[in-house]
């Protein structure tokens, strides 16, 4: 069958099951936009290429399928570098197609030419420059395979204009021949046996579960492991939703703004069962002081993460789900050979201690007067945590929550409860401000039947709010809660704590811009909330609107801080709790 390169590309994307592309056309990618008109693939026209990338990430995070974005050469390509870096850090499968100048013009500083494969080398799992139209089906097949297998990640296909225009005979891809790409799958049985023995012998184990749980579909396996061993579970920022948070074994999130119980449990643990995690600096604090008495079982599909930060006593380089299932099998055999040798009963002293910490050190904030219900007195300034709590109470169990980066992100992570996998979407590793609005849009496209709320900061919102015009035009009814504290709040918090309250360039203004009118200008419903008693009615009103996006400008307390906090570079032993808990025995 003879096709143009552009047609071959679209046909290849269709055959990969792509249902939506987030993109924005331009000169070099023009030929590819023509066959899109006739394609079954829905194209969503974003207002900025960064939005296309984050939307594709949001889509991928909630569906588990690769997100696809398309941009033109030069600035189109450079604008999507941030989402690529974000997806690379958080192991999100993305396939980005970028236009490129004609092969004969490459290297001549042609109009809108940049070295896209060179620029994206360090922020993609792999990339390709297509130089022969007959390669297209093969390259696309390789791209989807690499993006979605092993440790998932973003890939980029750079697509020169003359290749798009060339005529080619379309042949379906051959079986993949990637001699240098063999992601591990099945765990080594000896390592699993060793891990099972360590678990059976542990007195203070902690399951430290991360994004690998969600990526490998291991939530059921994780629950079985926790049930069988009785071990408490902490889920990282990227692993949230991988374990039901109503389960009494759940300790909260670890890390710099994690729960006292999760952070301290790891410090006192004698065995970390690390599943699909990378010992991120935000989790470990000062590495040399992290979990000093713990042995480590490290289950991880990426071999390079094992031993990178923390030595593993038992390394299991395998698919997370297959490894946990094998571990559960090995432990069941152990249990039948030596009944009662391990399990919840043996861990009773440990879990009793953890329960005590959980009761003593919950996430908390100043709720105003001590009288019950005084939060609605109207006197207290509106606390951002209260907004999150009310939002959680007023939304379905399986609502999807998306956040940007900063204080609002941490409050969302602290005060939301996730019961289901793939209901929490945020920028973890890269910390990309402006992530929330476009990612929420992508999430809603991927899961149109679910309610999607974005919790955003006022600083973040201003970076990518233009995608609300996309959401309105494409009838994607997302809801955005701006926790508007008029500051770059997390930076202000650091200046408060570490720079003697010398606030440098962090004040933004609470009424400039006018978020309600801005929302309305973009075709959304805009609401404003200034006092606690207005919170619930506004949320209820927003929840009722399903034909357009809604933006709620919550004017929150400017000086609120995120607690607990482990200062950067400090030991997790030196966790600073909320002032109201400071005097409590630890």
């Amino acid at each position, binding site marked *: 069958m003879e096709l143009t390169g552009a047609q071959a590309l679209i046909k290849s994307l269709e055959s990969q099951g792509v249902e939506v592309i987030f993109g924005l056309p331009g000169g070099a990618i023009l030929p590819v936009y023509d066959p899109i008109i006739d394609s079954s693939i829905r194209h969503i026209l974003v207002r900025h290429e960064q939005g296309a990338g984050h939307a594709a990430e949001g889509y991928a995070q909630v569906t588990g399928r690769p997100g696809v974005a398309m941009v033109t050469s030069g600035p189109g390509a450079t604008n999507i570098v941030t989402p690529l870096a974000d997806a690379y850090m958080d192991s999100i499968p993305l396939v980005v197609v970028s236009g490129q100048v004609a092969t004969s013009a490459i290297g001549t500083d042609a109009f809108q030419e940049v070295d896209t*494969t*060179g620029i994206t*080398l*360090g922020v993609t*799992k*792999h990339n390709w*420059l297509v*130089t022969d139209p007959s390669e297209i089906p093969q390259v696309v097949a390789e791209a989807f395979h*690499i993006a979605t297998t092993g440790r998932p990640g973003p890939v980029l296909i750079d697509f020169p204009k003359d290749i798009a225009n060339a005529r080619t005979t379309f042949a379906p891809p051959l079986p993949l021949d*990637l*001699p*240098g*790409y063999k992601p591990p799958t099945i765990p080594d049985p000896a390592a699993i046996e060793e891990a099972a023995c360590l678990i059976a012998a542990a007195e203070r184990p902690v399951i430290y579960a991360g994004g690998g749980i969600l990526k490998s579909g291991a939530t059921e396996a994780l629950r079985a492991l926790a049930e069988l061993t009785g071990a408490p579970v902490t889920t990282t920022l990227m692993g949230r939703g991988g374990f039901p948070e109503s389960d009494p074994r759940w300790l909260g999130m670890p890390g710099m703004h994690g729960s006292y119980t999760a952070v301290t449990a790891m410090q006192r643990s004698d065995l970390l069962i690390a599943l699909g995690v990378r010992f991120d600096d935000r989790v470990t604090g000062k590495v040399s002081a992290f979990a000093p008495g713990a042995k480590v079982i490290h289950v991880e599909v*990426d*071999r*390079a993460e*094992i*031993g*990178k930060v923390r*030595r*593993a*006593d038992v*390394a299991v380089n395998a698919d997370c789900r297959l490894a946990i299932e094998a571990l559960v099998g090995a432990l069941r055999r152990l249990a039948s050979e030596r009944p009662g040798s391990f399990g919840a009963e043996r861990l009773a002293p440990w879990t009793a201690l953890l329960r005590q910490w959980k009761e003593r050190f919950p996430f908390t904030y100043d709720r105003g007067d001590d009288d019950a219900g005084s939060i609605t007195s109207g006197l207290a300034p509106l606390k951002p945590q209260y907004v999150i709590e009310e939002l959680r109470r007023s939304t379905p169990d399986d609502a999807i929550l998306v956040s940007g980066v900063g204080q609002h992100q941490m409050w969302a992570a602290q005060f939301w409860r996730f019961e289901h996998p793939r209901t929490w979407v945020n920028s973890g590793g890269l910390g990309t401000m402006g992530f929330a609005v476009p990612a929420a849009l992508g999430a809603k496209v991927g899961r149109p039947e679910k309610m999607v709320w974005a919790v955003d900061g006022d600083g973040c919102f201003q970076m990518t709010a233009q995608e609300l015009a996309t959401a309105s035009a494409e009838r994607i009814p997302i809801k955005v809660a701006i926790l508007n504290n008029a500051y770059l709040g997390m930076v202000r918090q650091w200046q408060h704590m570490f720079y003697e309250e010398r606030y440098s360039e962090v004040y933004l203004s609470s009424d400039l811009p006018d978020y309600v009118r801005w929302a309305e200008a973009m075709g959304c419903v805009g609401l404003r909330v200034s006092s606690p008693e207005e919170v619930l009615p506004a949320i209820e009103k927003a929840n009722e609107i399903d034909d357009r996006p809604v933006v709620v400008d919550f004017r929150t307390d400017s000086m609120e801080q995120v607690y607990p906090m482990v200062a950067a570079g400090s030991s997790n032993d030196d966790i600073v709790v909320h002032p109201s808990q400071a005097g409590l025995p630890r």
Partner: protein
Amino acid sequence: MSAAAGPVERNDDDDSRVRHHLVALLVENKAGVLARIAGLFSRRGFNIFSLAVAPTHDPRFSRVSIVVDVESAPLQQVVDQLDKLVNVVEITELHPDDAREAELLLVTVSVDDDDQAEVEALATASGGKVVDAVPGAVTVMLAADPVVVDDFEDAMREHGIVELQRTGRIALPKLSADGATDA
């Protein structure tokens, strides 16, 4: 698990040789593969001491020999990160004791009438030869074990090196008794 623990703990008088490990890569001969390797080293803060690249007998693949400074990063981490590059097909870590290493050197030395003969004699004794000579200067080529090349370079320094080019180390595993390689 502790990275690079095995080879590094061996006793060896020559410290720099132990710090410098040779990693031999078999890579797909595709555009940009060298940029991927070099980019990985720079963004992860790994130090390359030397690098040699050329196609193998099979034109689909090239052999890349990298001498890595294992002080800059644990060897295991360097190997694991390299292994993630899609175009890297095979990685062999070669400790100097387990490898046959070689390096090629070209050096132009300024000489007067007296020491020209001495330079020629040194070159011959080391297994090299004079490949160019004019009054006042000679160019010597030497292909040998890197230690021999180091010693020869030191000796030439006393005569006055005008220009020097080394290729970087290449290596293959030592043969074992049954004819197969150890690696």
